[in-house]
């Protein structure tokens, strides 16, 4: 590319290797993909030092903004940032528009499923989902049966993990319907990119993301119990030691609402109140970032120190709105996941726009047989575990580990699913002083209120270690800005702010 550039720079895309993988910016003929031409040209034109300097500036500004993780056991200022890479991911508007439709479709179906599960359970009666799947799901909450959340919406804020395989197909890898995190990084990454490359934004028609906090606030206000004109909204956090604390505080700040901890709240006359300097003040809507288990020691785990005793009762009586509603975890159970395409068909009578990763349910005799015979090719996941625990990556596992998993599956087949090992797409990433391909996933964020809003793009997480498929921040993952290029259908009519 750009052969006229003859100075001995390293930070260019000549010799950039895309073999064997789908690259998000450069196609198999070494040509820029749709929407990426301008970006790649600009990066090639920039001198190496300038790119590296901007990369350093970006990291420094993350430190200055205090967007850091604590390293526990050390209070002497050893803090880390969630690494950020300067090369953005680009999604052309045609592809994005399809993803957006698919995500909206999926969230509508999942919401109908949750509502059905806590009411009539038609889907069980019609035998689309076997009853045992529900009975044995840890995330099913009896306490939620019969509850009618405002407007019938349970999952208000969702982060859905998408991955792209070798052939370019995008799959849903996971639905996160409880307390998905990461959206603050989307906003901060954008903020930094705008500061680093203002002219690139000028020329690129990138869809804006900075209206997210405003949209989130609108959604939360919409959920307020009826008859309250200007509701008091607050974000409920486990506290400053939680790893996502920065995000909780950032969102509260951006929305201009209080950030409360469990100990700031009491139930008074059946209402949820905050302790203020002027006495107790009612709260109408809580965006809670505490898991169901810990939210109310009277209703769930007794040993929880984080929650508010009596919160569930106030919720059941319609005196406080909770986002997300308790109980949504049933729909992101890893085994229920296998049925989502069927749920979409059942509730909406539509075919899934974004496919699931092909999934074998070990509960099914035939599928289990296949899984046991092909453990060396598959990824096995336990239903009730998260964060990479209880997982077997067949091709990388030892004979012993595979045998251990075979036993586990036979002991408790309901608890396991298996999927083919995907080869995640890659994207150029600055590694020391050159570009190398690194694997990425994508987590778009969806707000479900009066209507459904999908934040254009989302969080692109990148596995910074060579060859690694693990994008988690705890294991050497970083993030990138995500650009949806081109106007949205609505936007082309009324130009918005950038």
């Amino acid at each position, binding site marked *: 590319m750009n052969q006229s550039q003859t100075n001995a720079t390293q930070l260019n895309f000549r010799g950039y290797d895309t073999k064997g993988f789908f690259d998000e910016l450069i196609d198999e003929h070494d040509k820029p993909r749709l929407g990426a031409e301008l970006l790649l040209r600009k990066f090639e034109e920039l001198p190496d030092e300038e790119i590296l300097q901007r990369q350093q500036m970006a990291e420094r500004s993350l430190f*200055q903004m205090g967007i850091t993780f604590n390293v526990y056991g050390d209070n002497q200022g050893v803090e880390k940032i969630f690494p950020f890479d300067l090369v953005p991911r680009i999604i052309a508007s045609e592809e994005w528009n399809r993803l957006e439709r698919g995500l909206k479709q999926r969230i509508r179906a999942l919401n109908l499923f949750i509502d059905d599960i806590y009411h009539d359970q038609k889907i069980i009666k019609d035998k689309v989902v076997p009853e045992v799947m529900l009975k044995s799901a840890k995330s099913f909450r009896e306490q939620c049966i019969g509850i009618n959340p405002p407007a019938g919406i349970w999952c208000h804020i969702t982060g859905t993990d998408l991955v792209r395989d070798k052939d370019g197909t995008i799959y849903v890898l996971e639905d996160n319907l409880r307390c998905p995190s990461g959206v603050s990084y989307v906003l901060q990454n954008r903020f930094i990119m705008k500061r680093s490359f203002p002219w690139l934004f000028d020329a690129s028609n990138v869809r804006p993301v900075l209206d997210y906090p405003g949209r989130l606030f609108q959604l939360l206000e919409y959920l307020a119990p009826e008859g309250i004109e200007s509701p008091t909204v607050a974000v409920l956090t486990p506290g400053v030691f939680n790893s996502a604390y920065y995000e909780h505080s950032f969102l509260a*700040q951006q929305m201009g609402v209080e*950030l*409360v901890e469990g100990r700031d709240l009491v139930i008074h006359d059946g209402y949820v109140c905050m*302790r203020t300097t002027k006495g107790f*003040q009612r709260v109408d809507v809580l965006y809670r970032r505490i898991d169901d288990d810990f939210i109310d020691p009277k209703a769930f785990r007794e040993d929880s120190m984080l929650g508010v005793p009596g919160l569930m009762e106030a919720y059941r009586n319609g005196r406080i709105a909770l986002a997300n509603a308790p109980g949504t975890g049933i729909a992101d159970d890893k085994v229920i996941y296998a049925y989502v395409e069927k749920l979409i068909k059942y509730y909406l009578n539509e075919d899934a726009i974004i496919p699931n990763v092909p999934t074998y349910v070990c509960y099914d005799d035939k599928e289990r047989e296949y899984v046991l015979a092909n453990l060396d090719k598959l990824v096995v996941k336990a239903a009730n575990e998260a964060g990479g625990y209880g997982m077997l990556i067949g091709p990388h596992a030892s004979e012993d580990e595979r045998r251990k998993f075979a036993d586990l599956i036979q002991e408790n087949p309901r608890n396991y699913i298996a999927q083919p090992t995907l080869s995640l797409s890659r994207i150029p990433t600055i590694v020391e002083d050159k570009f190398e391909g690194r694997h990425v996933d994508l987590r778009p964020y969806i707000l479900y209120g009066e209507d459904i809003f999908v934040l254009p793009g989302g969080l692109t997480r990148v596995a910074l270690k060579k060859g690694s498929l693990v994008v988690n921040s705890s294991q050497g993952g970083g993030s990138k800005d995500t650009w949806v290029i081109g106007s949205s259908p609505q936007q082309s009519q009324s130009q918005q702010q950038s």
Partner: protein
Amino acid sequence: MLSRVADSIYWMSRYVERAENLARFVDVTHNMSLDLPRGSEQQWGALVYASGDQEYFEKHYGKPTRENVTQFLTFDPEYSGSILSCVQAARENARSVRESISSEMWEQLNQFYLTVCDAARAGLPESPNDFYLHVKNSSHLFVGITVTTFSQGEAWHFSRLGRVLERADKTSRILDVKYFTLLPSVADVGTPIDDLQWSAVLRSVSGFEMFRRRHHGITPKRVVGFLVLDRQFPRAIMHCVDTAFRSLHSISGSPQGTFWNIAEKQLGQLRSELAYSTVDEIIAIGLHEFLDSLQTKLNDIGGGIHQSFIAMNPDGQAKPSITTEA
């Protein structure tokens, strides 16, 4: 506003102010010791005494010297009263209320902390003035950013309250220690003595020029009068108490001259006491005794604020009122 947030904002300000005053303390002692014969460590011992943590000091450092007292008050990570620990505590408080303060305030305080950490790792240079100046300026910058970016409602008043109460306490301590060092005999009060040393004390609270404009010639009595009773000089105790008084009434909404809670009662009493005192009366009581009792009262006021606004117990409070406005 949330009680917890009010508390953190109050302490955030207090700790920033405390760090600034520590820098002033150490810096002025460095300056003054340059004029004294080598080997006279009395001043450094007095600083340890003023910290109120002699026991900790003796256990970890032994006899006070210029080097070890400087390390103790500046970078000791284990000692909660060092500049490093204060800036860290200020930042931790700010971190827990990031959503309530402006991002400029947070970023400046975060930057302040990172710089102090860097300095602690590098160790103090031969001439540490620049570092103490930096601490002082960082604190000033923080206050300036607070005044220009933070809505001046309840939270702002809590931050000002914390700042001026801390400052009143620290001005009284600087005065106490230096008065003791510079004026061992009461008979010397009112006689023109070492101009150089007293002007260093005034400079340590940035009060030299302001003092000059008001009094011209330096006498210990005038310095005491200026630092305790001046209503206009921002670091004078009277000025601080008066400012705290106004903030407290803005927070609770009660008319001045009345009180709705214990903190207002205590602060109103102290303000009146100062307002109707003369410097001669203070010297007659004994400056040290006067300042000691003042520090106790300031402490009690801190306790009263906690009791009135922060430590609200749902079971203990007689009749909690539900308000719907923020």
